[in-house]
């Protein structure tokens, strides 16, 4: 088995907010304060791990532990400050389903738009349009503007488009929490089919069910570091134990 994702001593800091969010005026004022310039917020500290091809791996941790940043780094939306990230294969991310959907456009128009943003050719998204809409079970409302859709309907549409991609590595950020029970089962089906075909999955979730049911391996992120890894159930136990102790 080869490695799909490898992190070697990866560090990630964010720029200090106060430096730029105050606008040009504050920027000019703060420039002269060397200390203010140096202040950066640490998000990930010396992260190293390997994910084998074909495995399904879950990341758990409290809000702000750095899970989303980690997925962002894998997806290529963010760039590491130090360390090496090696990836083998085409990545597709389901970080937020339907990012970029426009409320005034119809479901059909949004499918085209979202598909093109995800990297499809427009002609190929048009060819798949019927099956996408059928999978989302939205045949009746496909020509309505999106503002008439419920949250669950929008998520279904987003998942249907994203599931048409043919990646080697799939990133999922708590998107399974949306949609009704029947649709969630459908999502699990897609994910299981993807796993059976040898795909690699990286998943962020708070749901014990998702982690223990889907994952071969789990990592616990705490205070910007990986503090536990291995069997999903024991990592989950440790996460939940910790959460109780600290009163969360």
């Amino acid at each position: 088995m080869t490695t799909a994702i490898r992190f070697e001593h990866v560090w990630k800091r964010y720029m200090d907010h106060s430096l730029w969010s105050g606008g040009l005026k504050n920027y000019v004022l703060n420039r002269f304060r060397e200390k203010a310039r140096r202040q950066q917020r640490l998000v990930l500290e010396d992260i190293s791990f390997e994910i084998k091809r074909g495995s399904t791996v879950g990341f758990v941790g409290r809000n702000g532990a750095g899970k989303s940043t980690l997925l962002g780094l894998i997806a290529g939306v963010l760039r590491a400050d130090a360390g090496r990230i090696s990836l083998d294969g085409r990545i597709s991310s389901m970080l937020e389903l339907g990012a970029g959907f426009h409320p005034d456009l119809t479901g059909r128009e949004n499918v085209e738009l979202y598909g093109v943003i995800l990297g499809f050719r427009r002609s190929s998204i048009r060819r798949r349009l019927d099956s996408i809409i059928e999978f989302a079970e939205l045949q009746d409302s496909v020509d309505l503007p999106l503002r008439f859709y419920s949250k669950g309907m929008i998520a279904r549409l987003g998942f249907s488009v994203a599931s048409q991609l043919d990646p080697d590595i799939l990133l999922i950020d708590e998107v399974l929490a949306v949609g009704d029970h029947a649709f969630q089962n459908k999502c699990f089906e897609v994910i299981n089919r993807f796993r059976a075909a040898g795909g690699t999955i990286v998943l962020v979730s708070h749901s014990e069910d998702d982690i223990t049911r889907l994952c071969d391996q789990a990592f616990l992120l705490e205070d910007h570091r990986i503090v536990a890894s291995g069997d999903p159930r024991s990592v989950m136990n440790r996460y939940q134990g910790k959460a109780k102790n600290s009163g969360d």
Partner: protein
Amino acid sequence: MGNHRFSPVRYIDLVLTLTQKEIKVRYKSNLLGYFWSLANPLALATVYYLAVQVFLRVQIDNYIVFLIVGLFSWQWFNNYLVTSCGAFLLNASLIKRTVFPRFVLPIALNLQNAFHFVMSIPVIFGLLIQQNVRLHLATFYGPLVLIPAQFLLLLGLGLVLSTVNLFLRDVERIVVILLNMMLFLSPVIYPIDMVPQAYQKFIWMNPMTPILEAWRGIFLEGTVRWGLVGLGYLYALVALTSGAWVYRRLSWRFAEVL
């Protein structure tokens, strides 16, 4: 960001789809979408005509055509630069969640504004006929030469503004003030010959000056003034170079600051 490989065809697909989306949204929300894109410059033209020609009694030949030509071009400049400040900022969820070449956003926005400008050209032609201005061959092919110059100039400036505004969020407000000032420091409501010699060189430093003057040449004199067109392209090159430089230096941090 090398996971997704975007071929040139995909860039074009992406830009066209985004542009189409914007135009659709604009024309969907109101039936009079086309009228609204004309209303502002036409209203301004009426007011300036009254103020300058009627009240101040300044004589400028074909002043109504002169104003309309200048204001339509200015409208594109003004609207694009104001909205370009939000080109990345208002697409935060896309930039944070998906990997695609971010610079297609200001391109699509500019194409949308260019589309509105092109749609307003028939109004200029109607006015030329109504005012008995002679139409020359250059009146027809001139826009094909000049529209790309204005497009590229604006794209360069827009790339700088859209990028910088992410990091320094008050740039947007400064831009609005500067644009209000620039309207009167550009040959939009007066011809550049009326500006005293001593000040003319400052007016020429305004990147829109050669393009505005060239538009007048095309519609009022029926000639493509190549010197001005060339200067317009030169300004466009400078703007694009700066835009590309700023974008390349900062684009990797976009997802962090949104």
